[in-house]
């Protein structure tokens, strides 16, 4: 049912019994999960449901968090945060090249900026960019490293509605071109349906719902209702 079945044979990310707790409170409670290579997965959940904890665990960023379980992830992982997290003292191109060396790094950086629509802004300071532009630059920074796995923690949460729609299209387009595995953390049901091929709902530290999205189907409304129900939200339908 999912596209590009031949790519989905080898899981890119594998979680077995992943448990994480903060101060005695269990946030992730023995999660088993496979993310096939090249799949675009969205992770939904209430705030505090542990979705960021899961993402940070996969990113290897949870240094001082108590926990157990097995976790395998690819070598090249990029993270896009909710804030663009550009270093204010580096120009846009230098921000994109952060941590990258090699002789054609600069060419790659310029290409990545062109791909996200920031050609000509290489020499700008981050403070001169709009919120959407800054997030584009952050996307370029994560792309330029040719990640096998792209982790995104509510990357569009701080953007206005119109910019967000444009960024959805851009992210989907970039994913189709480069085919990394994507794990997108969001609390926006519609964003998850628009972008992902598979939507997970995290509930009390476990995967409460695992829904495959058929992109050609006209069943968007039904997906929406099922996901909202899994999140404990009931809508009054006209």
């Amino acid at each position, binding site marked *: 049912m999912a596209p590009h079945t031949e790519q989905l044979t080898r899981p890119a990310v594998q979680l077995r019994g992943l448990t994480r707790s903060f101060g005695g409170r269990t946030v992730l409670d023995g999660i088993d999960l496979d993310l096939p290579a090249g799949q675009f997965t969205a992770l939904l959940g209430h705030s505090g449901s542990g979705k960021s904890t899961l993402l940070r665990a996969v990113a290897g*960023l949870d240094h001082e968090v108590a926990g157990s379980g097995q976790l395998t992830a690819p070598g090249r992982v990029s993270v896009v945060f909710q804030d663009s*997290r550009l*270093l*204010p*003292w580096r120009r846009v191109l230098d921000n994109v090249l*952060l941590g*990258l060396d090699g002789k054609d790094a600069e060419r790659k950086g310029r290409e990545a900026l062109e791909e996200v629509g920031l050609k000509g802004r290489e020499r700008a300071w981050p*403070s001169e960019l709009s919120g959407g532009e800054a997030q584009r630059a952050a996307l370029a920074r994560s792309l330029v490293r040719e990640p096998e796995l792209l982790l995104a923690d509510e990357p569009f949460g701080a953007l206005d509605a119109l910019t967000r729609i444009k960024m959805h299209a851009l992210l989907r387009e970039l994913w189709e071109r480069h085919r990394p595995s994507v794990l997108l953390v969001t609390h926006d049901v519609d964003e998850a349906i628009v972008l992902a091929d598979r939507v997970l709902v995290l509930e009390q530290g476990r995967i409460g719902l695992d829904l495959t999205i058929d992109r050609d189907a006209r069943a968007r409304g039904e997906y929406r209702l099922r996901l909202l129900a899994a999140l404990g939200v009931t809508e009054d339908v006209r």
Partner: protein
Amino acid sequence: MTTTTVSTAPPLAKPDPRPDRRVRRRRSLSPGKRVPAARLVGPALLIVLWAAASAAGALDPGAIPAPWTVLDTGAHLWTAGTLPDDILTSLQRAGTGFVLGLAAGVTLALASGLSRTGEALIDGTVNLNRAIPTLGLIPLFILWLGIGETFKIAIIAIVVYIPIYLNTHAALSGIDSRFVELAEVQGLNRLQFIRQIVVPGALPGFFVGLRLGVTGSWLGLVVLEQINATSGLGYMMFQAQNYGQTDVILVGLVVYGIFGLVSDSTVRIVERRVLSWRRTLSS
């Protein structure tokens, strides 16, 4: 049409004295446009008043000599006296002490800001040092190092390193943890992390310390030269006090003032260059 009924005023209302009232601009509460070279206006006015009062004979020339007398004395001391030597001696003391203090302040701040062991060893010690007024160390330092140049340079270095250490260390420990996370994600090694994130992030704080340190070096210099020296600007002024030469004292003060202004402006210009990414925020 309904528009006519909507737009007419109620019949009982008094006629407005200004029927087609336009939008009045609100009174601006900001101080207004900047005057060019505004910072020079006050000092210039002070000098004019000083000259006028001297010319009118309202000032006792023994207490406050006229501006031209000070200039004359300055020129005379420069050509026939020891002023160039005194200035050179003072500059060497302040400069050497400053460079040593700068190096010590930055090194200690980096060592203390980048490792927990360093912090445990250094931070408390420096704060203890700060609690003791540095000029109070003069008697001890004279006994240890003798009354020569070494002890003067040591005192100036201590006066300089403390503000540089404190501000740089504060800036280092204040670096946004989100940037640390970013560095981990981007796979920076420790050296790259220090060069690309820690140092640039701490520069604004470092410059605050640097400016305080520059001021501190002049302050230390004045005190040291007026009590324990046989050469230098402070010594020249101290001698002039014994002979009641107010004009010579004023020459010394003017030279100190010029030193202070020039060094502070230099630091500011360097700061503006180095932190050019910040200018876009304020303009």
